[in-house]
């Protein structure tokens, strides 16, 4: 048997060891995701990449591709589920798109559009989360954290600093900064760290940038994330040679 599987009826090749997500992305196919990033180990926490493999739900970012698999991705059933997951994320934090400087560059927002989410549907939690502005160059606005732990992985695995961690359980989980004071200024975090640019939403922000790039000229303004995500991956592979 050749190394390929069917994604919504289309053949997708893979190399052994690849996950469904990796193989699909390499083949230019978009599977919605939030906590997955091609440069980091899969995390499997957001469940947005949920697909159906042989009729059973599985997260594409953690499931190995196997020859002959039949994977459903773009079905109305799965999109509706993803929409609900997104709505839960929106009400759990304080997401305020019209005045958020990440608007147009935000993976959460772009994915919500992609999935056809037009209202948050659930009651808002309005959690009380403080902003950490202690660092001279970078602002942390925890209101928008979706706990994907990309920053945790980037800081630990790439920067070797361990600046971020998740703390608490269940509905009480939240992102913390690893310093005695809990303030970013009291860590060795630097604006040049990989963790400074990995956040898919508007938590980790370079200060004083704000709206320098007009709305309308941002990543997901011209193209939907399904297209943009695939292009970004292709570009980064080109760069990597």
């Amino acid at each position, binding site marked *: 048997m050749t190394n390929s599987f069917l994604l919504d009826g289309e053949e997708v090749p893979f190399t052994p060891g690849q996950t469904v997500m990796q193989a699909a992305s390499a083949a230019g196919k978009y599977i919605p995701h939030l906590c997955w990033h091609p440069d980091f180990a899969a995390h499997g926490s957001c469940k947005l990449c949920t697909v159906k493999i042989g009729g059973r739900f599985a997260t594409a970012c953690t499931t190995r591709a196997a020859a002959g698999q039949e994977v459903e991705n773009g079905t109305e059933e799965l999109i*509706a*589920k993803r*929409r*609900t997951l997104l709505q839960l994320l*929106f*009400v759990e934090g*304080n*997401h*305020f*798109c*019209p*005045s*958020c*400087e990440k*608007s147009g560059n935000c993976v959460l*927002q772009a994915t*919500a*559009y992609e999935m*056809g*989410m*037009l*209202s*948050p*549907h659930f009651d*808002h939690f*309005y959690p009380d989360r*403080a*902003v950490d*502005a*202690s660092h001279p160059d970078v*602002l942390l*606005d925890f209101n928008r954290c979706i706990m994907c732990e990309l920053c945790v992985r980037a800081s630990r695995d790439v920067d070797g600093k361990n600046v971020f961690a998740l703390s608490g359980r269940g509905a009480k989980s939240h992102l913390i900064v690893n310093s005695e004071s809990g303030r970013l200024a009291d860590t060795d975090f630097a604006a040049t760290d990989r963790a400074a640019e990995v956040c898919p939403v508007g938590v980790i*922000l370079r*200060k*004083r*940038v*704000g*709206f*320098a*790039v*007009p*709305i*309308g000229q941002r990543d997901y303004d011209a193209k939907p994330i399904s297209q943009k995500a695939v292009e970004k991956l292709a570009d980064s592979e080109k760069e990597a040679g």
Partner: protein
Amino acid sequence: MSFELETATVASDNLRRVAIDPVSRVEGHGKVTILLDEHNKVHQVRLHIVEFRGFERFIQGRPYWEVPVMVQRLCGICPVSHHLAASKALDVIVGADRLTPTAEKMRRLMHYGQILQSHALHFFHLSSPDLLFGFDSEVSRRSIVGVAEKYPDIARKGILLRKYGQEVIRHTAGKRVHGTGSVPGGVNKSLSGAERAELLKDAYQMIAWSRDAVRIIKELHEQNPALYDSFGTFPSNFMGMVAPDGSLDLYHGVLRAKDAAGRILFDHVDYQTYDTLITEEVKPWSYMKFPYFTSMGPEQGWYKVGPLARVQNCDSIPTPFAEHERRELVAYAGGKPMHATLGFHWARMIEMLFAAETIKALLHDDDIEGTDLVVTGERRREGVGVIEAPRGTLFHHYQVGDDDLVTMANLIVSTTNNNQAMNSAVREVAKQYLDGKEITEGLLNHIEVAIRAYDPCLSCATHALGKMPLEVTLLDAEGQMLDRKYKS
């Protein structure tokens, strides 16, 4: 899993972004209480504006560069005014004492686009039905739809004038609502050649139609001077911003005030010092504060802001057609200031003409295609930004910590500046039109017309676009309720 009404059927660009937005619009309303004395004469009239409060707190703790975008949520009609007033305050914070010519002109263009669209909306959509059909005419006719049936040409011009203003905003702010064009220290875009050409195409038509609009309101005054000169008329001081040379400038300048007789009270005041000039009085019966000139005290020191104040406060208007019309208004008033409530509409249309002429001039200036957009300088901790918003002087005042978060915000919106004046206008109208112990439809309508001359819908305070829920309560000398009417 899918929920009922989960997916809206409309998908416009505007809707998309705003849709994912947890903050529901807080609507307030105007409440009028009229107290009679023992002879059933009007003893006391109070307009309570139920304001959406707490916005200042909302801004506190936010990074300063977010503020110009965030504050646009304050007003459904003139978000751009808040966008620019906040930007101007933050220019001071980032040390941008002089913007680049491109930034300054783009902001002006945005602002005059805003004036044009808001004034067109205010006059044609919201007020012209009252003025053209009479305050007591059938409710069903008193809308822009009614105007479109009887006076299709007027309605059409009104709608297209507003639309043009919105197009100017879209090209300068990036979007028609919640634009991001103005940033601390400048702007984030200039006009492309194509955008400039597109706007220029209709610029002259807008001037012509604005001239027609001035003529309409002027004729209404001339046809019925008894009504127009006396309706809700009361003397007061007035305040507004003027250019340093005394000419009308709605974007930037110095503060000037005149008394009821037109004598200068103060002039050339740097608005950074507004808090020494103005005191905001809190009254137990109203949520909205009552500002007054500190030196004159609360009894004497209250004032009007907005078109009628501005057009009479300045020495001249720097565009030819609007200046001509200003002189006509001054001549009509006969050498002393006009204090008629309906005079606001006349002055408003003169300003709309000024805006149209200014837009044309700016579009002819090559700087608006420039690429030098932002400047910064020495960082400061405090800044005040003032703009002449469509309905009057608007103050934004911020303090920002070294960590870039806002620590203090104080806003005086146009409606608040006019709080006492609007109360006086409603008082005059109640005196003139309250007859007996009942609140008639006619009284309700007249009160509404008076408030609308200042503020079409109390929008800064209530976030309601084009709507003005109004409640009028009549109390006798013992405080017993005689009547109550509600209108939404």
